[in-house]
């Protein structure tokens, strides 16, 4: 597969990723958000595959596989399991109105593109729009975490912004070293587990959402 084709494909996938994050932002219901992040991970995996094909670097294929397994299946399943374990209302209560969030999101995306536009030649180091899209994804993920009340949604946002990092990471000249990628994913999984444990313990001890605790202040 030729490089410019790959570049075009990457740009398209970047668009899709952005779109899926916006879906998460717009989601009014917990499961929708989780599915959206799963879909996003699938796009990410595809991107990995494309880049692997373009650069002929087998590591990227492996990474794509891992991504499918872990991010598109394992983690969403974990989230869903937790949700089912603790019967909580399924809808997402925003801290700030969803429309306002979307407005902010638009601003962030613009910022990301302006920023990388100012870079110039280096862009070759990173295929296509991977850089601005990555930045946008990360910031949008954090935006989700900041603007949604439920702990689980915050985890979703975290995964979303991780996806952003991975996207850029793959697009950086022929992907990162394999063992690093694996280590990173390992960490993400472990972190997710610990977060899950915390959520469950809070549910079991004091029956509230852990993200609602606000006794420690000042």
């Amino acid at each position, binding site marked *: 597969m030729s490089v410019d084709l790959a570049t075009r494909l990457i740009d398209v996938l970047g668009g899709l990723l952005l779109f899926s994050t916006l879906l998460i932002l717009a989601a009014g219901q917990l499961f929708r958000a989780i599915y959206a992040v799963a879909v996003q991970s699938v796009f990410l995996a595809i991107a990995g595959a494309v880049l692997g094909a373009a650069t002929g670097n087998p590591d990227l294929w492996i990474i794509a596989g891992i991504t499918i397994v872990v991010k598109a299946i394992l983690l969403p399943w974990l989230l869903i399991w937790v949700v089912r374990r603790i019967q909580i209302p399924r809808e997402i209560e925003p801290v700030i109105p969803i429309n306002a969030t979307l407005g902010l999101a638009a601003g962030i995306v613009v910022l990301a593109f302006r920023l990388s536009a100012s870079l110039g030649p*280096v862009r070759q180091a990173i295929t296509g729009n991977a850089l601005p899209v990555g930045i946008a994804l990360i910031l949008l993920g954090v935006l989700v975490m900041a603007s949604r009340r439920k702990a689980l949604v915050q985890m979703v946002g*975290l995964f979303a912004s991780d996806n952003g*990092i991975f996207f850029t990471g793959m697009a950086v000249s022929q992907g*990162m070293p394999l063992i690093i990628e694996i280590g990173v994913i390992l960490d993400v999984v472990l972190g997710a587990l610990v977060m899950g444990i*915390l959520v469950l313990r809070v549910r079991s001890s004091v029956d509230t959402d852990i993200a609602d*605790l606000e006794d420690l202040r000042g």
Partner: protein
Amino acid sequence: MASSLLWLTPLLSFAIGLAMLLVRDRRVLATLDVAGSLVLLGLTLAITGRVEQGGPVSALGIFRADHVTVLFLVLIGLLAVAVSLVTVGWMRRELARGQMRAERLRYYYALVHGFLATMLVTVLADNLGILWIAMEGTTITSALLVGFHGDKHGLEAAWKYIIVTTIGISFGLFGTVLVYGAAAHAQGGVLAGAMNWSSIVAIAPRLDPGIIRIGFIFVMVGYGTKAGLAPVHMWLPDAHSQAPTPVSALLSGALIKCALFGIIRFHTIARAACGPAFSQGLLLTFGLVSVVVATPFILAQYDLKRLLGYSSVEHVGIIALGLGFGGRLGTYAALLHVINHGVTKALVFLVAGDAIGRYGTRDMRVIRGLLGIAPVAGTLLLMGVFSLAGTPPFSIFISELMIIRAGIAAGRYVILAVFLFAVVTIFAGFIHRVGQMVFGTADASVGREPEARLPVLGLLLLVAAMVLLGVYVPAGLDRVLAHATEIIVG
């Protein structure tokens, strides 16, 4: 052989941690803990000696120990020993007061050693990816420790801690990716160790400044979150106040320094790539903001451990200022301050833990007359706080002195004025609160059990370091610091 030490050391402490999972007896665990820490200290010293004679050592292509590393290494080792000694006495009281359940003891010890191991890897890593992975590892292990008591506040703190720092860390990863990308690009796509700090620094001047800028900003904010720089510090007082005391000591004394280590590594690259002005400006901004933000929260604070947490924010800010003023003097001073603050803050946290144990509260308005019931602890607390507030003959005065001098040399008078005002105000608040705690007469309900010998030994170890560095910078340390400064500012 020396190179194998680099991966042996963390591995060993991992092994100890795992071994602890199999043990149930309290005494054995404590012995393992102390012994393990001692061995750790020995190993770190061995590495230091090796580096000091033969210069930087690297192993497996991903580990590296240079003079910057060994500073942090020895700090970690020292704190590990002191903390393990104090834990003996602390644990006895916790069990007595039923805060800690005997059957979960081994998890606690295991986690502590896992935590130590991850920190060791962080500072030993040459590969920036490994550095990141280890950093995230510290987050995960320490988050479990913060919430270990399992009470509501502990869990809340743990959650805030893990969420906020994970976000920060992911920024750090992104920054790493960008730097890696720039490096790979500069090497024309040749991947040989493109992610190793040493090789990146070698080609740093050829890296594209624009992308490095963005990368460094991400790293600065990301690892800065982990280091507790304001305004992204907010998780810190929560976590440091809720964690079990020995863990608080490690968090404030060692962990945030590891995050600083990451920042320093990238600072070195950015300095070479974009010129000093950029990264130093960023560091100055964060440093000043941290000092200023910490001030009101220290003045209007009633929770002893939160007070100490905010003081950590202040001191990380001071270190950042030192790096930001730049030049040999500033960098040297900042590194020295890393050691000084690590030792002092750990000491104060441990003593404060003892006081809190006796009075059963963290509210400084309730604690009275510590000097009367625990002379050693009271005196040490006073000394430690004086050191934190920056009075001679204690160590922090010296490093602050040098930092101020660096600031004057850099001609940053406005920043200095703000800094000095904040520091003096903080001094007032600090001594006021602690004076209330130490002096006066304690009421009868307070635990008056005599002070155990072993923990005091651990404290004295730290005090010795604190006072020694206050009156004298040993030649060896001076050499290491000088080399480290070389490495950072070239």
